[in-house]
């Protein structure tokens, strides 16, 4: 899609800008939809109805109304806050989760930037979120916010390791870090997906990746940074209005980003599960988004089912459970390939 755009516009810079904005066309409607969906999923799990009024059919316009409300709200900055950092941090968090979409292939015809180090780039750039969260916690000048930020930094840095190791298992088989190429290698029926290769090592790696990614997106049972019953609202306690909305948007964007990476590496990304049936670049978008959304819904399901771990138990899960098993997966895949 990059080359046709350049030819069409005869302006390389404009083509790059348009390429960069395409994921936003998905993320913003997706976030609005996902917030509504989360409310409906949680409501139906809890014997409630959830939003039913705004917009008529099952309250579909509820999040739009919420965004309008947030836009109108006063932007309160605590008087003792570090104003520059306080202003910057929501953007850093959002950029961190948005930038990851650049290397994720949405279909065989579209990937924001088809770079050879795609996976490496995604893992690296999503760590930017930690910086933003630390900035938010520090600049708010609130002890609860700071606690949330410190927990978040410790948590995300710890869980990067099992995440990266679990992804390495696939990279070893694929022999490339280019996400588009990894997708192309999985073309065909669903048993060509990497999750079913070198069974059960990659399968276990996928489970490890999914659990660790829950921690990276601060979702239950690892939602300690914003544990509302302990830390009020964690690092975004002191944020209101659109800045708060940006944190929210970033959280949902991040949820989809980790789901999309999981789908790309383990579940064939934009490949149809049924060989050539409903294949091609257009249906590819559909398959990719469906796989991503499936894991977003699983994340919601877990959130409304499980309690929250304590901070030391969280570290235990990362260092003593997930990381060793991720190493086992890598070793298993390695030996298998040697034989």
């Amino acid at each position, binding site marked *: 899609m990059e080359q046709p755009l350049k030819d069409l516009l005869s302006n390389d810079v404009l083509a790059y800008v348009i390429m960069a904005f395409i994921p936003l066309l998905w993320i913003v409607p997706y976030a609005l939809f996902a917030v509504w969906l989360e409310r409906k999923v949680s409501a139906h*799990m809890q*014997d409630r109805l959830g939003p039913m009024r705004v917009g008529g059919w099952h309250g579909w316009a509820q999040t739009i109304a919420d965004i309008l409300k947030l836009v109108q709200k006063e932007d309160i900055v605590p008087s003792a806050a570090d104003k520059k950092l306080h202003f910057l941090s929501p953007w850093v968090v959002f950029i961190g989760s948005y930038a990851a979409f650049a290397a994720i292939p949405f279909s065989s015809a579209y990937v924001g930037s088809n770079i050879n180090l795609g996976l490496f780039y995604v893992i690296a750039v999503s760590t930017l979120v930690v910086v933003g969260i630390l900035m938010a916690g520090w600049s708010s000048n609130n*002890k609860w916010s700071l606690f949330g930020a410190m927990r978040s930094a410790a948590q995300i840095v710890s869980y990067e390791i099992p995440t990266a190791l679990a992804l390495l298992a696939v990279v070893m088989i694929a022999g490339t870090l280019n996400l588009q190429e990894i997708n192309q290698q999985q073309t065909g029926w669903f048993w060509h997906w990497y999750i079913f290769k070198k069974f059960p090592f990659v399968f276990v790696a996928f489970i490890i990746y999914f659990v660790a990614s829950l921690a990276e997106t601060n979702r239950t049972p690892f939602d300690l940074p914003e544990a*509302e019953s*302990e830390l009020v609202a964690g690092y975004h306690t002191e944020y209101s209005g659109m800045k708060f909305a940006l944190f929210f948007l970033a959280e949902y964007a991040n949820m989809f980003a980790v789901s999309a990476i999981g789908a790309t590496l383990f579940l064939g990304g934009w490949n149809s599960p049924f060989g050539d049936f409903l294949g091609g670049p257009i249906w590819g978008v559909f398959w990719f988004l469906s796989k991503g959304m499936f894991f977003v819904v699983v994340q919601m399901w877990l959130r409304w089912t499980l*309690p*929250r771990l304590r*901070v*030391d138990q969280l570290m235990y899960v990362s260092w003593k459970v997930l990381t060793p098993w991720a190493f086992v997966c890598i070793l298993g895949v390695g030996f298998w390939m040697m034989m």
Partner: protein
Amino acid sequence: MSDLLTAPVKTSTGRSLRSEEMIINMGPQHPSTHGVLRLELVVDGEIVVDVIPHIGYLHRCFEKHSEHMTNYQQVIPYCDRMDYVAAMNMEMGYVVAVEKLLGIQVPERVEYIRVIMNELQRIASHLIAAGTYGLDVGAFTPFLYMFRDRERILDLFETTCGARLLYNYIWVGGLSHDLPPGFIDKAKAFCNYFRPKIKEYNDLLTFNEIFIKRTANVGVLPADVAIAYGCSGPMLRGSGVDWDLRRDDPYSIYDRFSWEVQIGKGEVGTAGDCWDRYMVRIREMEQSLNIIEQALAQIPEGDIASAIPRRIRPNAGEVYVRTESARGELGFYVVSDGSATPYRVKARSPSFVNLSVLPEICRGSMIADVVAITGSTDIVLGEVDR
């Protein structure tokens, strides 16, 4: 560990870094202090060195007000507002005390209705305790399941006396209303509906691996400490002390029913941990159902008020009566000088006493544990402050 905490941290150049404890303020506006409790936490990182509870944000001079009513009956609505999630239990405590002061017996039917209402209230109160406890450790869904079932109890109360939270139902010498037609069938239907729901809570929350991890071996309250602090109710029974006033010092007609006192046995951790206290409440709900079913089967016909004058004037004297509320031993000390108003009313509220043990069991735990422990003490600030 205290050495580790106080030892100065040295940098690579040998300079010592000063590290100090931080004081953070939890409440009175905090989602999980269950009302307007303020906890001053002295923390070292995530480790809690000390907890200092500050109370009094909901003090409404209940005891002083009681001395300035025009008669004894007018105190009852104030009792409701002590423990507002177990108002029937509060009324019961006061009314039993005044009746003892008067030396009167109430009709059989009244006693049965009172027991039924008290046990329904105990279930409703334990549902709040268990539900909000789930909320404290991060599980949102069980909370709403339990509130859904609590609604059915409140509906029963509403059909009986019109109120859903603060009833003014149990009066000195009787009740404000008789049971409405069809109440007994509805209550039986509730018992049949509710019994299987307890299993649902257990599946969803009680035996959840993460929930057990968060609550087992946390906030362990040994039996001797519990007794030394005067803890009562599920707090005391959770520590393995077999003590329930309904059985050991029966009031009303509790000696007529067969049921079992539930105690914490340390099934998943140490006896007296948060999980035990939580589990005692879950199991007590089942026992309360047993009592309700027996009472519903035996309830006789009859009057709902004994023949007492509108303005009662007990002979000069004093009385102390203790009853088992949902939170523990509720004592009422009532002094009469022979006039139509009480000379003095003093309530021994279980939440206040149970709260006093909080610093003892919180020291050395983590911030997240403080939330879990506070939740497991199941305090109601209206009753702590009165």
